[in-house]
């Protein structure tokens, strides 16, 4: 359910490091909690965000939630497909429903949660 090569945050974002850039999205748990997603607001390319800063928002039929930067990052590209089809985030949150590609600074990915730690976290939130 939660890929081992991804890292996770307590705010329910995931980040996956590639060669030159990293990909950020929200987790399956997050999309389930939000319900049907109807709108995504993403930043413009080139914008920089500090760790924990809100870089966009996701609107479901129930609420609007911020999405937070897992680490210090600069936006390289945004997923324009999810802007047109926000339901992709519900359907494939860890894949086609990715949100932004970013350039990371000297950030330490290991400071984020591993898949095991994240699953532990959400099992507690469920209770």
């Amino acid at each position: 359910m939660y890929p081992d090569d991804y890292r996770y945050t307590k705010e329910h974002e995931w980040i996956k490091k590639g060669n030159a850039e990293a990909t950020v999205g929200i987790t399956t748990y997050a999309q389930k909690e939000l319900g049907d997603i109807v709108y995504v607001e993403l930043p413009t390319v080139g914008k920089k965000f500090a760790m924990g800063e809100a870089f966009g928002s996701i609107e479901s039929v129930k609420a609007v939630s911020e999405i937070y930067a897992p680490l210090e990052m600069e936006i390289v590209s945004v997923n324009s497909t999810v802007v047109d089809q926000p339901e992709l985030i519900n359907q494939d949150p860890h894949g086609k429903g990715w949100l932004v590609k970013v350039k990371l600074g000297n950030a330490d990915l290991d400071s984020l949660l591993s898949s095991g730690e994240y699953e532990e976290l959400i099992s507690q939130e469920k209770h």
Partner: protein
Amino acid sequence: MRYIPSSKEDIRKMLSDIGVNSLDDLFQTIPNEFQFRGKFSFPAAFSEQELNQHLWDLANQNEHMMKFASFLGGGAYHHYVPALVDALISRGEFLTSYTPYQPEISQGTLQAIFEFQTFVCQITGMDIANASMYDGASSAAEAVLMARRVKPDRHRVLVSSAVHPNYRKVIATYTANLPIEIIELPYDESGKTDLAAFEKGLRDNTICVVLQSPNYFGVIEDQEKLFAAARANGALSISLIAEAASLGILKSPGECGADLAAGECQSLGLHVGYGGPYAGFLSTRQAYLRNIPGRLVGQARDLQGRRGFVLTLAAREQHIRREKATSNICTNQGLCALAVTIYLSFLGAEGFRSLAIRNLQMASYARKVLSRVAKLRFSGPNFNEFVLQLKSDAEAVVEKLTANKIFAGIPLGRYYPELKNCLLVCVTEMNKKSQIEQLASELEAAQ
């Protein structure tokens, strides 16, 4: 909800329940020297009949537009309100209801708001409109805030000095603590916003340009030209309308290329009153849907396929999103918006257009007659308002004419010191030709 004052017995019981002997004991935490022990000097109570007479005596001291020949405009316009409007909005279901917080139970209210939004879209040439705002000035300010939400990385707002002075004040108040620089653009000899100053003011950090048309001088702006330039620069265009009756004949903000239209509904079935209650409107293009402030009613179908209405996009409002809400307005001017809806449906497209034409004709006749006794200050085209330049201080002239039961207009020196001798004159379908001729002869004598 009924209001029943507490009886002596109620008070005694409440005091005894909380274990206090008397009202004095209840208030003993207030130091003695701060407690008022004297007697209030109210006059003796009136009987109903005496009170009625008293209120009539007070009312008879008022001067008002039906007693006078009135040429007052400048944001509050004397138009005829058909009896139908007040009769229908006085129905208890409408008169006593508030903006719906348990909305779907009030289908009638939601349908009325939906129709209001539809009318606003039709007359402003836009895709979407909200459920109404407080008034024209607050709509103007909300439009600027909305433009900033669309262009969060920009910091400069160009506002024409020919925008209603009160609207400009409210814009300044709403934006006082935001990192926004407001640049006021001068007007030129035609009474329009100065094109050269606009072009010079337009930078790549400009959020939006704000024009009013017809502007405070009654002059119709070259909106298309300025808005096209703003668009090329990546800035938004806001078209303000204080005199909505003009939309019956002038090109709509949408046709002029505006991204947002905002303004005052008073001309559309609301009495001038004492300056309120009025309603504001705000409309925009589909692309900016998520940034629109306030409430929005949408049309939907229920499980059985029947047409119904819902409050939509509420997830962005402050009762759900707190400090991150799109705006701080969670209400609307329900009753006034309803009056506007009834008024516009009563007039219909043809009636709305004929009314505008009537205003244009009356004002153009007045311009001709009055230009014999005073100079026209600006050369730009007008709808139903224009500026006369008198030979002396307009304030004193207005005072003199008031004594003869004429509200001659608004002396512009109040807002524009350089226009001390100038008078803003408004002529609507409520004015008679004889009143215009009387104004001309009295103005000639009073200057």
